[in-house]
């Protein structure tokens, strides 16, 4: 399971960070950082929640 972020769409609203803080972090530079590029299956539910929470549809699961 791979996290795919379309950084052209991402506007750093940080809703993914709120839904899945172990996977996403928006830092002080205003950019989103993916903390685990390929999380385990046990994180699927939380990753799906982050996908749904993103208001710019920037996150998908590869």
């Amino acid at each position, binding site marked *: 399971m791979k996290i795919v972020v379309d950084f052209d769409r991402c506007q750093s609203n*940080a809703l993914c960070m709120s839904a899945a803080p172990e996977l996403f972090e928006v830092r002080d530079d205003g950019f989103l950082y993916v903390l685990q590029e390929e999380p385990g299956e046990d994180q699927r539910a939380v990753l799906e929640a982050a996908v749904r929470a993103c208001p710019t549809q920037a996150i998908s699961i590869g």
Partner: protein
Amino acid sequence: MSVGDSHVVVVGASLAGTRAVEALRHQGFDGRITLIGDEAHQPYDRPPLSKTLLSGKRTADQVRLHPDGDDYASVLDVTMMLGRRACSLDVDAAEITLDRDERVGFDALVIATGSRARHLNHTDHLPNVYVVRTLDDCLRLQAALVAGARVVVVGAGFIGAEVAATAHSLGCHVTVLEAAPVPLERQLGATMGTYCATVHARHGVPLRVGVQVDEIDANGVILAGRERIQADVVVVGVGAVPNTEWLQDSDVAVGDGVLCDAFCRVRGSGAGTLKGIVAAGDVARWTNTLFGEEMRIEHWTNAAEMAEHAATTLLADLNGDSSSLMPFAPVPYFWSDQYDIKIQFLGRSTGHQEVVVVDGSMESGKLVALYRRDNQLIGALGISRVRQLMSYRNLLATGASWEEALTHAAQ
């Protein structure tokens, strides 16, 4: 009849409606679903309309809600009825009447008809007057926002401010008019509303507050006192009204929105709720038990979250097992991108008694401000301070006291 034989009709094909469909399927519902929407377009996302679509950075195809596009209906096995308007609801007969007098029966119903832009009286015939709500609205406005155009934005709310910023970036000469003495006061309070609105002046866009628009004509705007402001384009951003007219002769309880219980079930005009009917999104008014406050929210995140919750409630009720249901009690969230700043708000500001900047400063243009009501943290505003703001979400979700919030801020 088993749940799988049920026919769920979702009225409204924007974010709340489509998220309800997805949640029903995601949660295993395998009966029939029909999605009805009054716009002819495939479902699309509204936040980009006032920003990247209006500026031309994205096309209409790029603001679709689902990359699957035309395959959406088959992927989710949903019957789409787009460009069709629901005209009335008969609860007893479990039937909706559409335009052209077509009837659609249902076993369960999701009401997600959203809201529409409020228009100013006597302006609908004017070709130079625009609102910003639908894709068609924005494509029309986009064509008018040419460099050098004189643009008056009526209303300094979030939509008005975003349109002003976009028009300014396109080289238009923009003026913003606001009837209230303080912009954004209802959403942010007087101090922060005033502060956020300074973003216009910082970018050389004049904002005039406390001015009443008396009349709009083909040459621009006439203010009370007869001052005229010449404009090629007049954008009206004076709020939205919930789409409930189609329910007025039904048993659905309506009062500035469709009235719901804490679980998104729709109330009847008598006592209790209507079996198998839920509502979500801009149109729905419910009591958020986390804040002990009745609310109707016109923001993206609420439409998405409430639709999922409403679908969960609906399936549990259809299954006759509502024992494990939770009330819909989210921390409301909205954001607004204007010029070079990002405004974000978590929670509520209603009835706040104090606002304290706990991080950053007004001078720096980056800050987090907390809102207190009695001894409770009820809201947090962030301006270009994303990470710091989001750290208050859990505090709000757990009903943290003011002291806890200040302690967190000091860490």
